[in-house]
């Protein structure tokens, strides 16, 4: 699973670039497609995740 915060950061960067710059339609479309795909993955992660619980057995400290 891609790190969620990285996913969101990239999305934010995409939106900002799309919003601020005078892009070629080609590039704008490419960014848009990437954004939509990342959004889809993020939504999927959010709605389908199930908490994984792992127990780490304590090891007595030598002291």
């Amino acid at each position: 699973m891609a790190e969620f915060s990285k996913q969101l950061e990239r999305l934010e960067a995409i939106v900002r670039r799309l919003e601020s710059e005078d892009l070629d339609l080609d590039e704008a479309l490419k960014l848009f497609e990437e954004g939509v795909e990342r959004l889809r993955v993020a939504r999927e992660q959010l709605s389908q995740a199930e908490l994984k619980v792992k127990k780490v057995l304590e090891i007595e400290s030598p002291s």
Partner: protein
Amino acid sequence: MGARLDLFSAASAEGAWTVGEVTKRARAVIEAGLPPLWVRGEIAGFKAWRSGHWYFSLRDKSAQLRCVMFAKQNFMLPPPSDGMQVFVFARPSMYEEKGEFQLTVMELLSTDQGGLWKLAFEKAKAALIKDGLLDPARKRRLPPFPRRIAVVTSPDGAALRDIQAVIGRRWPLAELIVVPAQVQGAKAEASVCSALNRISRLSVDVVVVARGGGSVEDLWAFNSERVARAVAAMPMPVISAIGHETDVTLCDLVADLRAATPSAAAEAATPDRLEVLAQCGIVGQRLARALRIASRHVVERLDRTGDRLVRSMETRLEKSGALLTAHSARLDALSPLRVLARGYAVARDEQGRILKQVAQLPVGLEFRLRVTDGEVQARVEAK
């Protein structure tokens, strides 16, 4: 008593008591005559041995008593300090090996400066402050989207159940790493430190140290300077939720965030996925809007280009139009029809050849004559 202990009558050379017999007898007499009792006095010469046993004197203005408090009695207590006024519940006895009268202390209480606990707490806190460990600037921000969350708590307590439920509901994208620890009793301090130490070597984004409510003795481990220092040394942010809201432990003070309950700690550690989903919706809208704007720019540019194209075409067309008019005027002037209109006529033979000379027109020749509004048949009658 004096009558039964007639020591002089036993003072013959062969009848002398051994030292051991005296101390043993004295011990028996003391233990029979002085039942366990409460004694008040001031602590002096306090010393804690590595074995965990404490040795000190209790004194007042006129006298002093040697005291021992064994590890199994004192392990839950913060050590007192010299000069402190205390109450002890102790059994008077004889320490035979040294021939010393001493109190074996079973309970030790102090009302001085809020009592032993308060004093120990303040002492440890002062040490932590001195090392800058309680500086608010040390508090780290919690990660907004934690991937791995470690929990140090009792493996079968309500705290773990609460934390697991909250994280499972709010942020199931995370992995919960449970590091069980004893959270009360003699081994709690070492157990919590070892759990923290273990986590510090793992790749974990945030740590929750949790324990449900309890008495001041129950929470003792979380007021230990050692645990506080272990928390401060963690490479990642630590959220502490120890006891009830009213109990602030050293662990709470050192942690990056203090939560009132284990559930609150779990909430502080995680974002709410529903909120994040809503954020995703907003990002999606922004994306769509940004694309619309970006494409509108492009379309506008296209439109501008198109306009220019059309304008330049029009200009050119206008120019060619003018030229055409001029040309057609000239063409018009040259048109044979115009000539005919002026009264000329064209003579052509059957094959359509134009007859321009007299030689082409012998007498009797039938030919066609074109005038401005049509043709007629003609014949050469004479030269």
